[in-house]
């Protein structure tokens, strides 16, 4: 039996949402930055340890300044959100508390991963204490460029989605 789960990538422009999706789905990385317009949807079917098949449908949304401004139809029927920020640009996590609060209030049942990308350029140790002070529980740090942490992120998501 195949189960279908919708995963939405959220975050500001240029934080690397598309790069994360491409690294996970195609194992590629492109240095050229092409902003995503609207939504790009990709699918990955994986076999779970239980033998069941999981169809992960990844919605890669265009960047936003605040998650509250994202069209609610895009978020309809989501099973997981991956909120991405860029560890090299404080601007991309400036409003993170408000965004997280909005997500948790409006979508309390949806799994949430908070991910810092581009750790190939900035040590996560410089960012992590700042966010901890602000009570933001970052669930992982990744680099779409090197691939570090990407597989772990989706393995973790898969496990959460299966239960």
């Amino acid at each position, binding site marked *: 039996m195949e189960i*279908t789960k*919708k995963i939405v990538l959220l975050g500001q*422009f*240029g934080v690397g949402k598309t790069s994360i999706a491409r690294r996970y789905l195609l194992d590629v990385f492109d240095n050229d*930055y*092409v*902003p995503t*317009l*609207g*939504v*790009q*949807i*990709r*699918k990955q079917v994986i076999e779970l340890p239980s033998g069941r098949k999981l*169809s992960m*449908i990844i*919605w890669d949304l*265009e960047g936003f300044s605040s998650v509250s401004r994202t*069209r609610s*139809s*895009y978020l*309809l*029927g989501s099973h997981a959100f991956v909120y991405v920020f860029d560890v090299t640009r404080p601007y991309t996590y400036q409003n993170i508390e408000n965004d997280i609060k909005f997500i948790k209030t409006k979508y309390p049942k949806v799994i949430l991963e908070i991910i810092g990308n581009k750790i190939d350029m900035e040590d996560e140790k410089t960012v992590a204490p700042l966010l901890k002070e602000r009570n933001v529980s970052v669930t992982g740090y990744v680099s779409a460029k090197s691939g570090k942490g990407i597989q772990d992120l989706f393995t973790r998501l898969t496990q959460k989605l299966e239960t």
Partner: protein
Amino acid sequence: MNRENTFFSKKIQEIHAKPGGEIFLSSDTIFKLKEGENLYSLHPFFESLKHEFEKGRIMENSLAFPCVQLEIHKKEAICDITIKRERDFLAILLFDYSQHYEHLHEAAQEKKSAMLQEREHQLKLKYTSEKEAYLDFIRERIDTKLIFEMEQVVRKVEQLKRSSLEPEQREILQDIEEIIGSFHLRAIQIREGLDFDFDN
């Protein structure tokens, strides 16, 4: 007038499907679909909404999904999608805005590129000003902690030279004077070296 030949009629496709996904009507203007084909197999966009549409709830308002990048039967189009759940079927409207969005895409990329250049410029300015402030700090430290202190030592040596000293003491004093003189010169050279632009 033949509706088939109008410009916009070729840009809008209407699809009707049963809640289970079976397509029973399609105007085929953007994507050619076969009768009986399953809506949820066309593209992951529809598949990810299957659960919502199968719930059987009638939607009071239609759902709008702007700017969705679709690829169906190897044909790509960027569409605005409107979906309405009726009692027994789903009514889907696709608006092909590929040209419009592709132009927007270029515009967005140009805007983003300009923003990144602006940011690069700001960072360069910040870097230059911070570098200058740091170099000023180092220069000031060299002046006060090294050059000034060494000049004090030189003054003391001069005082000692004017006192009555044994020849052996005078030789040692000369050695000290030479060593201090050499350090003083090096400190000045280092200080002047900081005025050199290491970035170019």
